[in-house]
């Protein structure tokens, strides 16, 4: 890599992001940030130990959002059972560790592989024959039924029935703290939360880079072809059933790793840890974030990590909401409406808006913004101006679209 490449804005931004991610768990340990930065106007930003946990969950959700987005956004396969796949990842990790004594790190990786294979072969291959509505029903029935399956007495000895599986928080290996101590003269040592934060964020970053490469490979292009038109994909020589199964497989691999880390971070999993509502929440996240892009998944993960907190803080910064009874209970109504509103107005989500704004700044002009809401507004304006007398050439202005 040349020095030039290192000075590129994109690289600088990524380095900055890397530094932020690395120092994050220490921010609240510094005098300047002692306690909190209150009321940034949006929601109370308290930089406390809790934020480290928060950020860890962001890493988990990023894996889940990428998994959901690869399947639905990139490949066009709907799944309402994604929470079930994540749950399988979590349980597999738990069972491998608890029953078979597999080291936790290895258990998470094996869970990812196992979930990926199951998702690809058991869900993906049959799903390849089904169209959208049927696939939706099949995956819906999976997530509704999975808790009952997990509670079956026959597999009780593994799953522990309704009680679920728990572990103690993971301690950082002595090697790590010894090393850090030696390097920093005992100034820095990691506690359990900080350690799992680094593990999770590290995994998430690695897997983001991996996904970035996958979507740009032949496989990724085949997925997109599949989404845009199965017949078209077939004509381009894409083996449709194979690639559908592959989309489910890779997506499930991500969900499995995410589920494994979910278990490790939460230190607990039970049959109802993730339910149908979570499946929908994942879908909401990637739709609002932006279907089919990694940036969309990042927004989606932010949504998953912070939506509960933001919604419960809403009454603090929107005055009238204080009077609304049980406001927090309205959160599903809010995200459900947000979901519908996004699909109706900005189907490409936040990432789509950001991309359009960027292309606007690069001189693409309003015409480059491909937002249905905007084109609807433009259409109305055009009709209005066309109906005015002496404006017969009004429709020329819209031709460039």
């Amino acid at each position, binding site marked *: 890599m040349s020095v030039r490449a290192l000075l590129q804005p994109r690289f600088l931004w990524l380095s900055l992001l890397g530094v932020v991610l690395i120092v994050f768990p220490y921010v609240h340990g510094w005098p300047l940030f002692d306690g909190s930065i209150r009321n940034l106007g949006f929601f109370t930003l308290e930089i406390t130990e809790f934020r480290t946990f928060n950020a860890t969950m962001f890493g988990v959700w990023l894996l889940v959002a990428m998994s959901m987005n690869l399947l639905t956004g990139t490949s066009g396969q709907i799944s309402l059972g994604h929470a079930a796949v994540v749950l399988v990842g979590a349980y597999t990790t738990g069972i491998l560790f608890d029953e078979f004594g597999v080291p936790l790190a290895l258990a998470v990786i094996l869970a990812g592989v196992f979930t990926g294979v199951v998702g690809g072969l058991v869900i993906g291959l049959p799903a390849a024959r089904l169209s959208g509505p049927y696939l939706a029903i099949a995956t819906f029935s999976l997530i509704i039924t999975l808790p009952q399956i997990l509670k079956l007495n026959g597999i009780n000895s593994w799953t522990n029935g309704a009680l679920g599986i728990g572990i103690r928080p993971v301690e950082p290996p002595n090697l790590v703290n010894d090393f850090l101590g030696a390097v920093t003269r005992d100034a820095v040592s990691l506690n359990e939360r900080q350690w799992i934060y680094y593990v999770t964020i590290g995994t998430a970053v690695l897997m983001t880079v991996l996904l970035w490469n996958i979507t740009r490979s032949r496989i990724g292009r085949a997925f997109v072809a599949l989404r845009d038109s199965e017949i078209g994909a077939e004509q381009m020589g894409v083996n449709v059933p194979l690639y559908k199964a592959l989309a489910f497989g890779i997506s499930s691999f991500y969900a499995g790793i995410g589920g494994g880390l979910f278990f490790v971070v939460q230190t607990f999993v039970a049959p109802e840890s993730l339910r149908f509502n979570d499946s929908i929440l994942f879908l909401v996240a990637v739709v609002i974030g932006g279907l089919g892009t990694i940036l969309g998944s990042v927004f989606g993960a932010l949504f998953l990590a912070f939506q509960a907190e933001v919604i419960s803080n809403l009454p603090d910064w929107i005055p009238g909401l204080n009077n609304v009874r049980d406001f927090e209970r309205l959160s599903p109504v809010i995200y459900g409406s947000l979901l519908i509103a996004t699909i109706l107005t900005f189907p490409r989500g936040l990432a789509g808006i950001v991309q359009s704004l960027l292309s606007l700044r690069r001189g693409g002009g309003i015409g480059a913004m491909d937002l249905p809401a905007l084109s609807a507004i433009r259409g109305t304006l055009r009709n209005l101006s066309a109906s005015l007398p002496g404006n017969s050439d009004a429709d020329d202005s819209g*031709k460039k679209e």
Partner: protein
Amino acid sequence: MLSLRNVHAAYGSVLALRGISLEAPEGNIVSVLGANGAGKSSTLRAISGLLRPSQGTIEFEGKSINRTSPEKIVQMGISHVPEGRQIFTELTVMENLRLGAYTRRDGDAIKSDIDRVFSYFPVLGERAKQQAALLSGGEQQMLAIGRALMAKPRLLLLDEPSLGLAPMLVREIFGIIKTISEEQGLTILLVEQDASLALSIANHGYLLETGTVVLDDTAEQLRGNESVRRSYLGY
């Protein structure tokens, strides 16, 4: 009776009509000719309200119908027999015909009109209770025309009634169309790719190319026109 002036229309960003002007005087059979993709079907769709013109005017009996909904247009007296027939295949022949009269409220007259359709197309009467999917191609075309007649139109839009039918059947159907036009004083706008066939029953013809009228004359003149003969009549 019907007049289009400078009509433009588009499917999204695909311009299909770029300034169509044509007239269909009362009681006439007017034929619209042109190659595949010339905009013939789109012209009919614009008239029946399925495709909204972006510019220009469409007048029927002196009233502008540019922005009128398809339902209203049917009520005003225009029936459209679309390309590919578009009958309700899962419903019976009888139900198809009753749907043709959907905008009417005169129950008894509807019954006698159904009988009249059966007199033009006796096969339909024999198969009244059958599912329309079971009809042959020619019978389906008859049903489509019969269904359109049930709305008691004064203007009938026919889109390629000969499509996919055996020549003998086509001649039979065209004969019936001519009879209906004469008996009921019906004005007909007939879209056809088979120009010689269309010009044999039409009074007047328009030739379309890429969304505009390039030639317009009496049927007789068009039959004699050198370029029409070469490109569309094939002799």
